[in-house]
């Protein structure tokens, strides 16, 4: 008796998006990162190819983080007062991309000007030649002033800018369009909303192929399963031919995992929970590897050991 062929035949495919530009492409990056291109369910190599394994970006803040717990401080505290130095550290640690958060432009967190933010971006671009992701501060009025400026100074570098939402998409989309950057489209754990943001952005003439979907993120123990099911359904829809869900997906795992008290609590809980030095990175690694099964192309992370653990898991799954 022969074994029946269980291979799915998918009509759709995830689009590929490249972040960063080398000198040959008009930028100054030492490398570029290509996301997406999957033609099947994650890690089922017999189902469809996975030409680009998930990429990992490590976080860089433009100010010294106020509340990063010990395990992260150990890795970054000597560089975190200088985003350029921090970006270099991230490259040394082996990240594929630098994820720069312009925290200090927030009216309550320093209220730095668009020009100051632009200086920071320039410094990071000069210090480190990894492709760059740049986020505003989540205050629309401020981001609308800062992000066009930032997009302008990063012209040619083909950065990934975040994030457009259903409510606020016009300015950032226009900036990305004008200066040749890719866009992160954020929606709150809802497939229809994700599609709606994509439609709004493409209605402005922005290409659908240059969008990365960010369906929001939740960590282990804090509603991860909701995100998981959205990822899974989105991926199945994309593979079934839904063009509006066929964009690569980004997850902000580091931010969410390190908000969990299980990751943050220090060694005062070691007796019950185990040593903080392992617990935090593990929390981040487990969140990331779990969510990868749902279909994700770009992870934003914080701890290098978590990153390594995820890479190891990915390589084992792909070889298997």
């Amino acid at each position, binding site marked *: 008796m022969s074994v029946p062929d269980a291979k799915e035949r998918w009509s759709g495919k995830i689009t590929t998006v490249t972040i960063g530009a080398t000198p040959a492409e008009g930028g100054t990056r030492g490398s570029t990162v290509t996301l997406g291109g999957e033609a099947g369910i994650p890690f089922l190599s017999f189902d469809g190819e996975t030409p680009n394994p998930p990429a990992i970006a490590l976080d860089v803040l433009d100010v010294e983080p106020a509340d990063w717990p010990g395990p992260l401080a150990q890795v970054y505290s000597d560089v975190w007062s200088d985003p350029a130095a921090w970006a270099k550290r991230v490259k040394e640690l082996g990240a594929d991309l630098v994820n720069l958060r312009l925290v200090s432009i927030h009216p309550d967190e320093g209220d730095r000007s668009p020009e100051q933010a632009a200086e920071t971006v320039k410094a990071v671009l000069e210090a480190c030649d990894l492709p760059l992701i740049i986020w505003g501060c989540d205050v629309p009025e401020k981001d609308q002033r800062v992000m066009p400026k930032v997009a302008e100074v990063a012209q040619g570098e083909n950065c990934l800018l975040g994030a457009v939402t*259903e*409510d606020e998409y*016009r300015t950032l989309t226009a900036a990305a369009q004008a200066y040749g950057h890719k866009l992160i489209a954020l929606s709150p754990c*809802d*497939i*229809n*909303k994700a*599609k*709606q943001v994509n*439609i*709004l952005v493409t*209605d*402005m*003439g922005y290409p659908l192929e240059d969008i990365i979907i960010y369906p929001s993120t939740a960590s282990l123990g804090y509603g991860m399963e909701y995100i998981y099911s959205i990822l899974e359904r989105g991926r199945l829809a994309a593979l079934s031919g839904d063009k*509006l869900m066929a964009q690569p997906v980004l997850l902000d795992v580091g931010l969410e995992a390190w908000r969990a008290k299980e990751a943050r609590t220090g060694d005062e809980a070691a007796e019950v929970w185990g040593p903080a030095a392992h617990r935090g990175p593990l929390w981040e690694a487990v969140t990331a590897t779990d969510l990868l099964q749902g279909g994700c192309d770009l992870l934003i992370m914080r701890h290098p050991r978590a990153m390594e653990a995820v890479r190891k898991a990915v390589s084992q799954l792909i070889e298997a």
Partner: protein
Amino acid sequence: MSEFRIRFLPDERETVVEDGTSLLEAARLANVYVGAICGGEGSCGKCRVIVRQGDVEGESTEYLTRDEIRRGYVLACQVFPRSDLVVEVPPESRLVGYEGIDRESERFRDFAHRGAEAPPAQLDPVIEKFYLVLPEPTLDDPTADQERLLEAVAKRRGGPLQMGLKVTRQLPRVLRRLQVRRSSWNWTWDGRVTAVVAPRSDVNELLDVEPGDTSDRNYGLALDIGTTTVVAHLVDLTTGTTREAAAKYNSQIRYGADVISRINAARRPGGAAAMHQAVVQDVETLIDDLVKRAQVGRKNIYCAVASGNTAMLHFLLGLEVDLIRLSPFVPAAVNPPPVRAAEVGLRIQPRGILYVMPMVGSFVGGDITAGILASGLHRGEELALLFDIGTNGEVVLGNRDFLVACSASAGPAFEGGSVSCGMRAASGAIDSVRIFHRNLAVSATTIDGAPPVGLCGTGLIDALSEMLMAGIVDRSGRFQVHRAPERFRTSPEDGRPEFILVPAHQSATGRDLVITQADVENLIRTKGSIYAAADSLVRAVGLSFQDIRKVYIAGAFGNRLNVTSCVSIGLLPELPGERIHFIGNSSVGGAKLAILSRRMLEEVHQIRERISYIELMVDPAYMEKFTSACFLPHTDAGRFPSVVRRLEQRAGHVVE
């Protein structure tokens, strides 16, 4: 306790109220109508009046601008007299055409349209009049009067027949003439009578016996007790024609625009009786008007067939309504038997019968069974959808093999209730809108061509469709202020942008007529819920909209809806135009069919038994369909190819 004299302008009506009576209450006492959507809770901001003389106390600043407060504007439900007052009710707060019957108003043109519905092929009216010539009793044939009559009627109308004591008491004097001379009297046989027969469930009742031949004087009323409008048609049962039609606003509106606030009002002391009286009084007002115009006696109206949603029919019958809005949503009755109209308070023929269109449940009422009957959806071979778009939205799917219905919690977004510049479709309501893409110039038409007072449902749908096509809103309904900053103003209430449709100097109210971001959001939610309801029904039976051969649109604004606009905003599915049929007020249409044909009256009961109700709130896929439909026209653009094509063409013209 002090009393204050309050005079209302422009009606020049006065009333005296006790201390502590709100201005809104005072207006009610004076029989002056002031729009109060929320029923006087201070949450709608619609009951704006101007205090011309005297002092009031109370806070009403939330919904008024500083300038308006300076000019004496107050919210009538929130302020109390402190002295004698002169109060002006401005046009936007007056319910044009509310009182009495405004036949000129376009709002009622559909209803007043006589004989719009073709009479059923077989005219077989519920009330039958038999002219009989009974033979004079003799010693050889001493049959009693009652038996004599019943035997004669039985030859014309078989089956069990009953006859009440009151009619039997009159009978001998109807059959004979009594001549009295001084101390003697004499009975002379006549024997020419007209018997009036009406079905009461399984038996026929001999309602009355009239002397002579009155068989050509046989009238009935078809009633639609709508949440917003009460409609009455006077139908000639011998010819099947509609003699006169009249409509008026449901007076319950003063207790709130939607069904739920009415039910809440009924829970207050005396509330239930007041709500019942309001509806009965509305019907009585309409009957007065009908009989006067048609020159017909009330005594020749032998029946009324009432249609309407479940809550309204409960109000009419004086049944408990509260349970309708409480889980598990069990109404007092869904199939009330025929009753004497007099018992309900309708002064037609004293023994006349009131029939009520059977209801399916708390959220699918007699207006829907009537609508199905009128559309003929239940008899057709082809698959059809019926949308009833009124204060509530209901959708029915089916054909002669099956019927499923559901109710979309649509809300009154189409009837002016929750819309900031909304009004009922009365004189001065903007009912169509066109926006030119190049300069965003707005061209609008109003009902009766009167200066614009506000927007009615059709106008609002048109406006949203046009704003979408002109790029004034994006596909999620957000205003694109950068397209024309000068055409927007900032809302004094929530600080969000408002699109100025008609500037203050061109409006009848002296205020800008605007569409707010909240208006757009409400409308999108409403249309999304109706579309998603239809979507759910269609999917529930494993089909898609493309399988639907006929779409019937029923509802108050039936015939004036612009199909293109409805499709553009995604209220209706995109289907070939020839599949869409407007059937107007099918609630009264169905009632009329039932009054003209006993077969139809039976059929509507069969319809009731056949309908399966689908509760969307327990359908896990509904929420998904709803969010998907809360986009313009829909998140799944493939469902609206021509709308998307038009949007793309438009994008070519619009300079960002």
